[in-house]
């Protein structure tokens, strides 16, 4: 459960920082205002949708931290050099080249949305449209690539039921893929708005929301990738040492 505890610790630090700015030391029973003078809470300048996305990312981050926790708890790493692990739950799957291509696709997609965000700031409508199109296409390519990877694994006999490590691979990639697919709906709606001639000002919020979500998905994917390929093994070993 170490990944989720780290994640909750980060959230706790952030919440503590936020709460510390909320005048929790105030003595509200002494503060009575009169007409014309109201203790200054005049509403937040941040749009509700941005706060909403922030809260959603915390929830989604929690979901992935839990999945990572489960993976870290279960996966067996043989640390002696050259040894073949013998447990039943071990990283039994190879890392196909296609996963690298997919990762590149997601990076391109995230970069394209960042460009769209910048272009909205510069009010270049055509650039926004192009960037959104590239972002959508490369994200679709990522999803298609992931499905291909699944096909390759199934053809090679790595079934989900065969080994918990295989099952973890399908679940981690599957849930991440679903988040990408759901995000594609939002990006699609935004792209459609550009098509229907919305001005960059009216797109600012939607593009910002999509961009932040896309960066989040990229970070989650890179973490998943690192876990699945074994780069994070040292981290897992350290986590286990911490957890006695």
């Amino acid at each position, binding site marked *: 459960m170490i990944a989720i505890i780290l994640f909750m610790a980060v959230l706790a630090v952030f919440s503590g920082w936020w709460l510390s700015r909320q005048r929790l030391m105030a003595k509200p029973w002494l503060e009575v205002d009169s007409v014309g003078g109201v203790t200054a809470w005049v509403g937040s300048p941040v749009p509700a949708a941005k706060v909403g996305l922030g809260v959603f990312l915390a929830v989604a981050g929690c979901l992935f931290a839990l999945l990572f926790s489960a993976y870290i708890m279960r996966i067996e790493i043989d640390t002696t050099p050259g040894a073949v692990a013998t447990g*039943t739950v071990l990283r039994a799957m190879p890392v196909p080249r296609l996963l690298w291509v997919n990762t590149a696709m997601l990076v391109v997609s995230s970069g394209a949305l960042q460009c769209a965000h910048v272009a909205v700031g510069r009010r270049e409508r055509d650039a926004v449209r192009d960037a959104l199109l590239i972002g959508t296409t490369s994200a679709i390519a990522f999803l298609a690539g992931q499905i291909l990877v699944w096909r390759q694994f199934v053809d090679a006999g790595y079934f989900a039921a065969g080994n918990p490590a295989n099952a973890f691979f399908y679940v981690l990639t599957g849930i991440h893929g679903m988040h990408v697919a759901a995000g594609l709906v939002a990006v699609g709606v935004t792209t459609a708005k550009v098509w229907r001639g919305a001005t960059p000002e009216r797109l600012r919020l939607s593009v910002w929301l999509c961009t932040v979500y896309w960066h989040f998905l990229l970070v989650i994917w890179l973490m998943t990738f690192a876990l699945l390929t074994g780069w994070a093994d040292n981290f897992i070993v350290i986590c286990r040492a911490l957890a006695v």
Partner: protein
Amino acid sequence: MSEVTADTIGSVGPAEVAELELYHAHSWLTKYVFCQDAKVIAIQYSLTAMAIGLVALVLSWLMRLQLAFPGAFSLIQSENYYQFITMHGMIMVIYLLTALFLGGFGNYLIPLMLGARDMAFPYVNMLSYWVYLLAVLILVASFVAPGGPTGAGWTLYPPQAIMSGTPGHEWGIILMLASLIMFIIGFTMGGLNYVVTVLQCRTRGMTLMRMPLTVWGIFTATVMALLAFPALFVGCIMMTLDRLLGTSFFMPSVVEQGQLLNYSGGSPILFQHLFWFFGHPEVYIVALPAFGIVSDLISTHARKNIFGYRMMVWAIVGIGALSFIVWAHHMYVSGMDPYFGFFFATTTLIIAVPTAIKVYNWVLTLWKGDIHLTVPMLFALGFIVTFVNGGLTGLFLGNVVVDVPLSATLFVVAHFHMVMGVAPIFVVFGGIYHWYPKMTGRMLDDTLGRIHFWVTFLGAYAVFFPMHYLGLLGIPRRYYELGETAFIPPSAASLNVFITVAALIVGAAQMVFLFNLVWSLSRGKEAGGNPWRATTLEWQTPQTPPAHGNWGKELPVVYRWAYDYSVPGAEQDFTPQNQPAPGRATVPALGQTA
């Protein structure tokens, strides 16, 4: 956030409210069925939760009948008994209490108490209810599915939950998991709304520290639920895959009826971690809204400001944070490292500190108050007593050495029913008696309410007090029948009969409550806008029940905190939050202060 520090309290002038693009219902269907108004959604949530709760109530009767008169009823076979236990627990904890506190009270009270017109995202809010309803329907479907609902126990521990010895392993468990997944999706939609509404949609002058404790409780519980439910979500998805695709997330190599199953390498303990990472915060997800509501009930009906408001807020936040690092105290007997047990016992006992602060503050609020023993107040007092009771047995169970012998006995059942069953449901009742006049414009009948309270209160104690004793005797929970056992005296059987009779009476008393709800809708005394003479904003609406959009043209402005009761020198014994300070009308008008 643009919260300003205390020394720069400035003038922001009267509320200038821009025309909001409010959702407007155009037909009967969008006004009462597919409605985006938080008040209607709240009532939909509450009615659905109470309906499914009635099912769970009947299930508890059936269980009690079996325990008192083993084998007397042919319709209660051992597999049925396990199904009743499972569904009773799951429904009560998740589909009734969580949905009612957050979906029901949260939806109704958050916008009204904060002076908002509606939730931040009304459409998502509506969707949340319909997904919840779908989850409930899937759950109900498992009662008619082949093999019946699952009988795995409300904790759904693998491997037994999906093995063929457990009733409902064909369809019941799949429907249960699917229903939970839907519930969590629906709740996440609603929860996003509650949190963002509290953060973004407060009216002018409503600083966080002026929010009523009800909103603090619901807000913190929602944040916790948003972070805790994903653990159950992950557990449910993995178990569904184990059951349907034959993966081995939780399933070790296991022999079933002499045959080695295809599973291998899974970890049942992993599920326990995931389940209780959700399950323990869940206790406080139910308790924190109850804490908040009861604070407001006590303050209003004792005509006194809440004692230690700041401490109450800090305690709510502190309990919320601590409740995430105590989960493994549910797993002392799972074979965990003793040092782990020591750590979790310590955190468990630490959480008693903020909880005790709250109890002291409630009692000190009552101290020398002008106590009106109205029905909501009776339920609030019942809550305090019951919660202390359940909390004290929690101290027993939080210690590893005491917990191990008591584990899986009726003592545990008595403990959690006291602390998170009976106590929060008292607050639900108190809250309904308190806010029903605002929701319908009519008072609930007082005599029926008093009958309901006394029978429920005394009855609940008649049910659960003896159960502690049975637990200390070592009588195990979840047993279909006890049979002939050396360590169980025959008197235990007569005590079981007593408990059952009490449980039947308590259940019947709830029918009085339901009758009261329906009867008072048309026959109840006219309530007026503010029958309890309360200070919070929901009682200051221009119409009762509040109209669409909650407020008139202008949103209310908040000048004071929520607990100005019996202020010395004031004309009335309560001063609403939207009433400015008297005699200081010479304060510079807008634009004249820096």
